[in-house]
């Protein structure tokens, strides 16, 4: 039996503790107490956890299968849009125009009825199905064509980048029926609970933590199964794997689709906490940033990208508050440093010392 590093278990414990203690320190502690965590920070941490889940999904295909996806922002945003549509439907007649049947932006565009894909989105099960299906289907169709034509390496990265860019441009158009460049916002409540209340925000935080833990568990099961071995074999010697009799395209397709669904779920949890989803979430730069988190944390280990995402996003929050104009330089420097000196990320440094 192979042995797994201690850090793997430590991270799990840390995540469980974080998920439990943060709501307690927000809801159960007086506001003037030293350990009190502001609601703003709870939501901020919740968003970090969503980013960590997104990073995990990228690592599953990049670190274990060798597919460098520069388009996972698109899957994240699609899951987010599906959730956003549900939230917009919950506004009812409390919108600016007070129209109980149509979202504000459609009233503004003089539409008489909502497009077909808004049908049933006021029901959560329908929205949940869309959260899984929208990114999953896009990834499946995209992967079907890309992997079957054996597009590999840099070329694949470029077309994933093109995919998210094209999708962004499409979503910018008002005619698409997703609110154009303003996107979907002004959310009021979820499942009948106000999004502004402390309790709901803590519940969303816990949901993000649980989703991350579940995603982590499932990814761990996958990479430790024989299918995980096959994935690594494909990453290291693709044609050899094919000669052993594995259908490489199928493995890529299913891993890619699963990874996209994970990203979509991360997006769906992110949107109610961020309060808005718009096409800029699909900007190519966003997807590249995710890759930076994974590279910095250490790809090919499931805990690496989670730590990378949390670290970089914490640094981003701190930097954009302290030195707003230098953040992009810092991000660039991080990427250069991690490429030059940390080929296996921060976690690689850690493992080398341990070994």
């Amino acid at each position, binding site marked *: 039996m192979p042995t797994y590093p201690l850090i793997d278990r430590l991270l799990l414990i840390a995540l469980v503790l974080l998920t439990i203690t943060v709501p307690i320190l927000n809801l159960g502690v007086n506001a003037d107490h030293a350990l009190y965590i502001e609601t703003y920070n709870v939501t901020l941490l919740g968003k970090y956890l969503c980013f960590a889940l997104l990073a995990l999904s990228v690592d599953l295909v990049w670190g274990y299968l060798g597919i460098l996806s520069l388009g996972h922002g698109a899957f994240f945003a699609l899951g987010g849009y599906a959730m956003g549509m549900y939230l917009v439907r919950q506004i009812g007649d409390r919108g600016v125009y007070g129209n109980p049947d149509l979202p504000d932006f459609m009233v503004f565009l003089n539409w008489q009825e909502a497009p077909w894909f808004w049908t049933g989105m006021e029901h959560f099960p329908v929205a949940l199905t869309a959260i899984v299906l929208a990114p999953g289907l896009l990834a499946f169709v995209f992967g079907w064509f890309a992997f079957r034509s054996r597009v590999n390496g840099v070329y694949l990265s470029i077309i994933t980048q093109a995919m998210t860019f094209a999708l962004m441009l499409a979503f910018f158009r008002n005619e698409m029926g997703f609110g154009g460049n303003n996107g979907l916002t002004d959310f009021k409540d979820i499942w009948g609970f106000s999004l502004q209340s402390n309790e709901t925000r803590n519940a969303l935080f816990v949901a993000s933590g649980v989703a991350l833990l579940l995603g982590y568990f499932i990814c761990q099961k996958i990479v430790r*199964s024989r299918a995980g*071995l*096959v994935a690594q074999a494909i990453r290291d*010697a693709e044609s050899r794997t*094919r*000669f*052993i009799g594995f*259908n490489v395209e199928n*493995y890529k397709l299913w891993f890619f689709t699963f990874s996209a669904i994970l990203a979509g779920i991360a997006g769906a949890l992110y949107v109610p906490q961020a309060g808005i989803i718009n096409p800029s979430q699909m900007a190519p730069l966003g997807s590249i940033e995710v890759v930076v988190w994974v590279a910095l944390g250490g790809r090919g280990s499931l805990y690496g990208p989670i730590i990378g995402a949390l670290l970089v996003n914490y640094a981003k929050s701190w930097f954009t508050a302290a030195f707003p104009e230098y953040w992009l330089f810092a991000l660039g420097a991080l990427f250069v440093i991690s490429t030059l000196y940390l080929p296996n990320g921060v976690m690689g440094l850690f493992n080398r010392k341990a070994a």
Partner: protein
Amino acid sequence: MNVSAQRGLLRRDKVFGFLTPAVGQQLDTTHSTLLYMENVSVSFDGFKAIDNLNFYVDKGELRCLIGANGAGKTTMMDIITGKTKPDTGSVIFGKNVDLLDLNEAEIAIAGIGRKFQKPTVFENLTVFANLELAMADFKSVWWTLHSKLNSAQVDQIEHIASTIGLLDMLNKQAGYLSHGQKQWLEIGMLLMQRPLLLLIDEPVAGMTHQEMEKTGELLQSLSGDHTIVVVEHDMEFVRSIAARVTVLNQGTVLAEGSMADIQNNDDVRRVYLGE
């Protein structure tokens, strides 16, 4: 329509060919010949890499394939394993499996294993995992996601590891093996597929004399149960293992026979020595 489908439509002997499943049917090896290549030609940009080649391999035989650079040895291997599709000719495995209808993965499952010139083992995986992946088992995504090794499979892995002399290195990462050990591991990976036909490309290139001897013994012990075709440049090695030798020249068979026959063959002497 793709090329292979067109070829299938034009074949007069296969009017109802679609009725027989391509893979999964029992391989018929009642004839003593395991592989037939007949009138095979292939050209790349006008260069005839294989020119009207006829080549037959008997069951259980250890055959050596020699020839100068560009004689078509690797292209021939590529055709058998489905990497290259020939322009004309037929390639039949056993009596009833048309290899031209199958893709690389299907050919591997049908029982043809190939070892490449450069050892390509999965460097980041352990020796055990390398053998596990090569095992003859269902290869679908869903199966590999949940299947666990049973004791018979673990036994098989250990048995083959001892055949190739790597039993005490099962948990070692394959990247840390020596060159010779990697070559043996790769042969072991081929054996895990329980192949009927083994294609081995330059097994002793870069090996020490000791490793070469051990490889020769390994190949000889495998023949009989398996049919083996070895491509090799090292004449000394060929002389030490082979029963039959085929000489390729300019994409076609120049001579065939025992090593002694080959050395006395006038055609071979003319091509090789310019006499």
